[in-house]
């Protein structure tokens, strides 16, 4: 599959992707807009294939808002990563964000969640 190389991004993503052993750790520092979310999704899936990662951990602890698009993208991402052989866990959802997600009747289907980085890594390691 030919991956069309995106234009050099004008702004770096406010998120870092770190490789830790067999896992990828994604830390989101600030709210992402839709375009950035899609970019993150593509980069991450790319990296999963390249690193042959077994697990993906996404830390959203810095976010105080998670809109429906972001929630769905994260859900999709978990599913896609699963298809490429990596388990995904979302960690650090703030209480307010959890309430909002539930109240908006949005689930994160097929997505494992954990309290924080430590818990997430423990789950990935198990």
């Amino acid at each position: 599959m030919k991956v069309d190389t995106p234009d050099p991004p004008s702004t770096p993503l406010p998120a870092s992707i770190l490789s830790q052993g067999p896992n990828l750790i994604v830390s989101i520092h600030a709210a992402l807009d839709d375009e950035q979310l899609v970019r993150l999704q593509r980069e991450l899936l790319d990296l999963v294939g390249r690193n042959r990662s077994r697990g993906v951990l996404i830390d959203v602890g810095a976010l105080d808002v998670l809109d429906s698009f972001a929630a769905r993208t994260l859900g999709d991402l978990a599913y896609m990563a699963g298809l490429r052989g990596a388990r995904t866990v979302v960690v650090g959802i703030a209480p307010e964000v959890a309430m909002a997600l539930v109240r908006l009747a949005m689930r994160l289907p097929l997505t494992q969640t954990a309290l924080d980085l430590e818990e997430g890594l423990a789950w990935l390691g198990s």
Partner: protein
Amino acid sequence: MTQQDRSHQPQDVGSTMSDDHQTEDRRTEEDQTVEDQTVEDQTMEDQTMEDQTMDDQTVRRRGQDERGASDPAGEASQESRVRQDDDDALLPELVSHLRDHRTSLRQQWAERITQAHLLSSMTAQEVFTEATSVYDNYVEVLKTGSVQALKHYARDLSERIIPRGVETHEVVGIVLLLRDVLARSLFEKYREDFELLNRVLDAYEPAANRIANTVAVSFVEQRERVIRDQQDALLELSTPVLQVRERLLILPIIGVLDTPRAQQLTEQLLHSIRTHRAKLVVIDITGVANVDEAVANSLVDTVTASRLMGADVIITGLSSEIAQTLVTIGVDLSKMHTVGDLQGGIEEAERQLGFRVMKVPDEG
């Protein structure tokens, strides 16, 4: 409490202000036409009030004469104005009548209250005492036309009698009885002169209605305030989130679980999950009287939100009735982990967390 007081305040101020405006408007109208008259009227009114022994009729006739003599305006307008002034003078006259017959009317009223089986939770002595003060306040309001003092009194009265279990219909009933008793005594007094009786009633009825209205509204407001206070207290008592083992929380829910409470509870639980780094939560709903669809759904939401925070939830204490209800109304709890009672829930949670609790055999 303070918040409710504040919310009531603007209403009160509004109504008093509009009342004042009305009286003021009328006053200015009068002032324009008969400036000198008003002064005379004032003195005349004062006289009537002070000199209670003097025959009312004479005073009024004298007032009319004086007005007729010094009034430069035309006949027709004079006629209506005289009536207007007369009506203003009627209330003080009424008041003095009610004052004169205070004892007998009050007695009559208290008897009517007993006959109607109102205020049955109070002793006859108490009824009579309250009746006296209500009567005096009533007459005072008729005299001054200001319901402000009555409002305070009604609030005090409500505070005193609500804990005694006095119902709204009783309070409204006694005020209407008083209104009735007084009206009857007016009929008695003016039955000779139908025209005059009509005018007396014109003056009396609005004031009496306003009083009845004020007392009833104050009573109901006071009642609602009590209910709201209790609701607030209930919400604050609410729900402790307790840690029983490392990373295990229990949340016993007692009472009525409605939407605002469910939300507050969820919020509290989620924050506790974060601070205690909980992995498991046992929610015990033994104390929840009634579980309907809304409650069940809010529980599902609580569980879902907790899962998003990485904590699993075990629900305990579903009674057989509640289980049957939930199945009958078709709430899907299949994704929830439920255990029979709190003990079972805690044991299950301990097992999942890797605790093993053992009884130590007694030494000796």
